[in-house]
């Protein structure tokens, strides 16, 4: 029997800003944070007589994303005008793709606690972004200002099916989308800068007592969620809110009450009702006569497919099976980006110890990058050298501190592992006779520890081992010391 009071149904509309140098229909730059209205021209200002020309690169990034989302690609697409009046849209129409989106019927896989779940994608299409309104917020009735730098920036809108069934799944979907778009070089997906934006369509299904079927509440679209946390919080809050509203008003049902839009108020942690969409707005879509249709032929599509590389979902599976890494390790590695994964693979190939490679990379290497700034490509320690260090550590049984010292030496002086060990004057004592001498000296110098050991406190052996290691500055193999120590103590 299902004890849940309701089931959450979520569909996400995600907008990602494409990583193009120039805008979708003109040559203006797309750099974030430029002085207001400095990145504009007659085309994106919508001046009389100006005409749009498609940025082919933007279309290709859209294709790349659509392919990665397993969409069917429209071989014939066109540009349509979506007509509505607003000052952030100087032409008073937005150039978009209406009935022939470049991609449709795809999916994205997310890794839930119950395993991999495939979330359907209804469509993805390209469109131009609007500008930014800067409203006078002092309430003095002064003029509002508008910054048109963003106007005409290429956006990819990705609409999921309502197949996300919890706040966590919604967040996972958005995280996975962000990872995918970044990995593909489609978008930098900086939510704070607005290059990844998300609207969530939320309602709930309430199972009824035997024979009563399932009731559904009206859909509420929560606009402009700009962090993963807010998305998760907003969906959770809104679902519960709808349940409580239905409890108060049994007529609060899908089909009886129309769709509404809401915003997320992060201060109060609530969704705030905006307006009800009584009727679908009439955008009077029609093909933009200023632009020509786009024909996607086999050759073009194959070239874009060739640029894709390995997709994150495939990479995730491969890293797990090929290297025997845990899901956690795979997740951490992939969150560090494709470059880090490649660095890892090379390191693991050289040292033949994937687990040790992951640990080194996620700990020491990340700490180094954090200290120095910059990325892996600028790190003087190559994956080859790191792999050699890890192999040497194993071979010589170097302890952590010694290995760290070798790592630092290699990094700062750009040395091979052997040279670093040489420079640090690390002499590894492998001669058992020499170790026996050292151990006997330690036993003689620590009668209390020996007595404790004999009383059955086996941990007391560590005191003796530590003494030997200290004396030799770690240049003997710990496992050899342990073995000899055991032998000597048993004998004595």
């Amino acid at each position, binding site marked *: 029997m299902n004890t849940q009071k309701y089931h959450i149904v979520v569909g996400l509309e995600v907008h990602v800003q494409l990583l193009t140098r120039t805008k979708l229909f003109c040559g203006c730059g797309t750099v974030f944070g430029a002085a207001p209205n400095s990145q504009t021209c007659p085309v994106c200002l919508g001046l009389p007589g100006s005409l749009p020309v498609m940025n082919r690169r933007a279309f290709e990034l859209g294709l790349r994303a659509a392919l990665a989302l397993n969409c069917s690609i429209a071989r014939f697409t066109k540009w349509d005008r979506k007509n509505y009046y607003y000052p952030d849209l100087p032409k008073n129409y937005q150039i978009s793709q209406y009935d022939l989106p470049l991609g449709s019927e795809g999916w994205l896989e997310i890794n839930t606690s119950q395993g991999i779940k495939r979330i359907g994608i209804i469509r993805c299409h390209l469109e131009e972004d609007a500008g930014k309104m800067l409203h006078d917020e002092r309430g003095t009735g002064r003029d509002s200002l508008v910054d048109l730098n963003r106007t005409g920036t290429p956006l990819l809108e990705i609409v999921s099916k309502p197949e996300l069934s919890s706040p966590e799944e919604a967040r996972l979907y958005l995280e996975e989308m962000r990872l995918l778009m970044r990995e593909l070089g489609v978008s930098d997906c900086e939510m704070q800068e607005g290059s990844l934006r998300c609207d969530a369509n939320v309602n709930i299904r309430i199972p009824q007592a035997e024979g009563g079927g399932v009731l559904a509440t009206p859909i509420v679209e929560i606009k402009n969620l700009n962090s993963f946390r807010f998305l998760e919080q907003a969906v959770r809050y809104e679902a519960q809110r709808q349940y409580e509203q239905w409890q108060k008003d049994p007529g609060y049902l899908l089909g009886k009450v129309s769709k509404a839009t809401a915003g997320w108020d992060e201060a109060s942690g609530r969704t705030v009702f905006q307006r009800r969409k009584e009727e*679908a707005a009439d955008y*009077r879509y029609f093909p933009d006569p200023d632009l020509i249709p786009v024909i996607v032929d086999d050759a073009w599509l194959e070239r874009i497919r060739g640029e894709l590389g390995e997709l994150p979902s495939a990479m995730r599976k491969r890293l797990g099976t090929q290297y025997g890494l845990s899901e956690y390790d795979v997740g951490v590695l992939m969150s560090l980006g494709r470059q880090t994964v490649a660095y890892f693979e090379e390191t693991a190939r050289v040292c033949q110890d994937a687990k040790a490679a992951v640990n080194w990379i996620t700990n020491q290497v990340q700490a180094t990058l954090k200290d120095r700034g910059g990325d892996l490509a600028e790190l003087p320690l190559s994956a080859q050298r790191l792999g050699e260090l890890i192999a040497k550590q194993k071979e010589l049984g170097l302890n952590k501190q010694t290995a760290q010292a070798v790592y630092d030496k290699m990094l700062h002086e750009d040395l091979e592992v052997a040279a670093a060990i040489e420079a640090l004057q690390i002499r590894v004592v492998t001669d058992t006779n020499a170790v026996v001498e050292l151990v006997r000296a330690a036993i003689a110098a620590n009668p209390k520890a020996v007595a404790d050991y004999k009383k059955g406190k086996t941990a007391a052996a560590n005191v003796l081992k530590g003494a030997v290691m200290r004396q030799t500055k770690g240049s003997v193999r710990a496992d050899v010391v342990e073995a000899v120590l055991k032998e000597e103590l048993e004998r004595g």
Partner: protein
Amino acid sequence: MSRTQLTASQLLDQLHRGEVTAEAVADDFLRAIGDRNTLLQAFLHVDEDDILQQARQVDTRRRRSEPLGPLAGLPVAIKDVICTKGQPTTAGSKILANFRPPYDAHVVERLRAADAILLGKTNCDEFAMGSSNENSAYGPARNPWDPSRIPGGSSGGSAVAVAACLAPLALGTDTGGSVRQPAALCGIVGLKPSYGRVSRYGVLAYGSSLDQVGPMSHDVRDCALLLEAIAGHDPRDATCVDHPVPRYAQRLDEPFASLTIGLPREFFAEGLSSEVEQAVRAAVEVYRGHGATIREVSLPHSKYALATYYLVATAEASSNLARYDGAHFGHRSTDHRGLIDMYCKSRGQGFGAEVKRRVMLGTYALSSGYRDAYYLKALKVRRLIRDDFDRAFAECDVLLGPTSPTVAFSLGERVSDPLAMYLADIYTISGNLAGLCGISIPCGFSASGLPIGLQLLAAPLEEEKLLRVARLYERATDWHLRRPSLPS
């Protein structure tokens, strides 16, 4: 004969030979404008200092034997829907009364590159919507053959400028006949290039899938010269074709080995004035006399052309003109309350009646519930109209008919009857819907002394053939040599 009555080619020869300076030529035309523009209202803006300065620069460069463009020193009047950097561009509308674009249209750049002198902006129907010039917010231009009559539209000011010898050349725009019809009514040559032949960049859009900039001139040679200067690929207009531009003027007089001229039955139907029909039929005989084969053809869907045009053009216009809202440029009402009220008042005050009518019509045609029945149906019919022409051009080199069903009518005659006004373009509209090239050339005069135009249509990108066929007739006749006599 005054110098202003010369053709562009004749003036170019004189300039080239150094018989006259560009400054003197510009001065002559400025004088003519000064004398007659008050009556004719052909020009909305003339910047005398700027014009003389342009001319002096050409003269200086010629004196220094620097290389000069093909139209060096030749004044060209520009329809006021075409952007000229820093100069007013009003589109005949109050809403753009104070608008000065920060850039030149492609065709204007080309003219500057050819060293032509930009001779001010010409009157037109507001946003090129009209067939009589009476929809100009600045008052109508008047027909130089009879100033009580309309000059045609929407490029009426450009037609009047050339016909009245205020400019040797002019640019117009043709969305449904707006170059050819006023050319016919004013007794000059006007050509609408094939869709995509000339860049639309910097041309204020009316019906984007129909608009083309076209040359207007005294004769076919001048027309070819001006077309050569403005045609060709422009990467800023996605609909502009990348196709080489022939040297139109050079090949004008080449004879035809064979020439088949089609007479569309539908172009000689009810509503055609008998005087116009007689003149056109006489022109047919001229061609027959020069060995052309004359064949009657049918364009069965042309009866839907007018309805199709007024759905497609207005739908596009309703969206194209949305940007004139007072927010970013152009007229903004001063007494608005809130954003929506600002939009409504700015547009309500800024637009004239015909623009409002067409924006409403187009908005309706695209609205949900009507879109399929009107706009999408119109697109299908447009395809059928194009198919009709494809069939006709499979057996004919060009099609021939009247440009306009009547000669110039009186000012005010059709103002209260928009449908009667729309009929003025009945023979020109289908050429735009099908993307053809077409030309109107003078072919006679009515009993009352008003010019009659002959229209020739050719398949897309067949401008060279079209011009040669037009020139063949022109060589055999002298209608193009007549100039209206005006009080000076």
